[in-house]
């Protein structure tokens, strides 16, 4: 499946099968979750990152079902196709953005998603306490979503942000690595 085809499917599904919700609602809801976590963990941003990732993971486990049902996607033949699907269909239908897929490693197991826009981070200015800028990955929920949803389709991945415009970097970039393909396990107790 080519990138163009993925883009077409994404557009089509987003237009016809997705219920839309007000952008500020999403931004402010997510914002208050992150801000509250920062308060609850008393500024332990490393822990906040972990919690966001965990929340995302749990979202991903569920969201993939909805995604597959709405898009009628079959199996991707390789990780490259998976990447295009994530960017042009996954992000498109749920957030109406299409992060760019770049920086492939030669073995085809690692790529970057660069976000030109990020609806979660509108309005946001990180706390000026000298640590948040270096420690907090504000949109870390997204990493968890990818890990959770890909796990449900037999891919164990690692996803983490490497730069964020909120920290003053040029771009927002997420690195996604395929660790292994999970083989379907035999049901226990049967020979």
């Amino acid at each position, binding site marked *: 499946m080519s990138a163009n085809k993925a883009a077409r499917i994404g557009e089509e599904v987003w237009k016809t099968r997705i219920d839309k919700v007000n952008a500020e609602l999403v931004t402010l809801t997510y914002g208050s979750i992150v801000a509250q976590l920062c308060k609850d963990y008393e500024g332990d941003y490393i822990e906040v990152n972990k919690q966001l990732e965990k929340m995302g993971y749990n979202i991903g486990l569920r969201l993939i079902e909805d995604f597959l049902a709405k898009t009628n996607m079959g199996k991707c033949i390789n990780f490259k196709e998976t990447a295009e699907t994530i960017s042009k269909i996954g992000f498109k239908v749920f957030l109406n953005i299409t992060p760019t897929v770049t920086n492939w490693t030669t073995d085809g197991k690692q790529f970057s998603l660069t976000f030109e826009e990020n609806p979660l981070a509108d*309005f946001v*200015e*990180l706390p000026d306490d000298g640590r948040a800028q270096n420690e907090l990955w504000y949109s870390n929920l997204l990493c968890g979503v990818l890990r959770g949803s890909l796990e449900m389709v037999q891919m164990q991945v690692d996803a983490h942000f490497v730069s964020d415009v909120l920290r003053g970097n040029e771009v927002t970039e997420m690195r996604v690595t395929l660790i292994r393909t999970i083989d379907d396990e035999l049901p226990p107790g049967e020979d």
Partner: protein
Amino acid sequence: MSSTRIACIAIIGKNNSPLHLSPFPATSNTLKYHFLTHATLDVFQARLPLKSNGDSDFGLLYSVDEGLAAYGWLTNTGVKIIVVVDVGGGGAGTPAMKDGELKPVFRALQTAYIQLVCNPFYENDEAKPITSKRFIEEVKRIGENWTPGFAL
């Protein structure tokens, strides 16, 4: 008048506490502007009962004879935006400004303020002045770049 420029932008909270004040150029003495904006609060108070149509624009609040004119804007949440304009020349205190000329300035400032309060990490605390870099930069940009008839 070509020398017309913004001399000061001030944001005052609901309970009349100063949230932010930027003089232009930045090196000017802020004390004078603190006095000026403080004095405008009474004008807001006095005109409030007459404002039944919900219009935020309070227009010219008053002018002082150094050629400074204070214009005000009040949001429905009680936040006051005050822009002091240096109309140049000095002497007679009648500013040569058209009605509504500052509307885009107020709108831009209000947008910046909305951006500020929508930041999930911003704590809406009247007692503290605004520290957001982005907000202060934006106010600076507006204050320094505006000239009459200029679109922001």
